[in-house]
């Protein structure tokens, strides 16, 4: 299941939609809006998420398929928010479901790493002076993605 939505979501509800009796292990990654920026001393009051929805859905579908096939998952749920979000709000949720934990955990990390560098979302910080500041792609995120190249065909 893949969802790009404006509203927030409930973790228990999303887990129920992804769960099945055949799974013994679920790995979740949840990204939220944090108050302090590591790159500067600026405080923000929220973020704005822009998205090219048709492309993002196609890209997420591809990532999800790779995760399902490569780690023999029974389910992989991806939810990403768009629009204006306040501090503390949920941005992204990945849930991977498998019989055993190692597969679920590794696949979940693959999905979030891929999403960070390969899916058409753009983040802006909403500063206290009401200005928007574009978030730059992290060099480390690209570096980190390289490690999956040997694992994923």
């Amino acid at each position, binding site marked *: 299941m893949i969802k790009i939505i404006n509203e927030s979501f409930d973790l228990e509800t999303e887990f129920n939609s992804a769960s099945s009796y055949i799974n013994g292990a679920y790995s979740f990654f949840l990204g939220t809006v944090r108050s302090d920026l590591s790159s500067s001393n600026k405080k923000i009051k929220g973020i704005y998420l822009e998205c090219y929805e048709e492309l993002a859905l196609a890209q997420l579908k591809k990532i999800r398929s790779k995760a399902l096939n490569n780690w023999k998952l029974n389910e992989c749920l991806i939810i990403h928010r768009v629009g204006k979000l306040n501090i503390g709000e949920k941005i992204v949720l990945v849930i991977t479901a498998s019989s055993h934990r190692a597969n679920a955990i590794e696949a979940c990390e693959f999905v979030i790493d891929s999403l960070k560098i390969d899916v058409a*979302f753009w983040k802006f910080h909403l500063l206290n002076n009401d200005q928007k500041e574009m978030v730059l792609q992290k060099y480390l995120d690209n570096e980190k993605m390289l490690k999956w190249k040997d694992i994923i065909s």
Partner: protein
Amino acid sequence: MNITLKYFSWIRVKLKKSHDLIELNQSISFKELKNNLISKDPLYNEIFEDKSVKYFLNLKEIDNENQILNNGDILAFLPPVTGG
């Protein structure tokens, strides 16, 4: 024929618009469109000079500048993504 251009992130901010509808008499290559846009507005030069920008034609990344654009095509201008 019509081609839709879609702009995202700083490109949208710089151009102060999210999309354009381009009318043409015949199909052209991506390279030709690029030169047309630059000659009309120097802001496009800044965009095309940024090697981190990617171009997606109908949801597929353009890997050859000679690719032909046809009626109804959607060409998107994508800065490096920062979701998640």
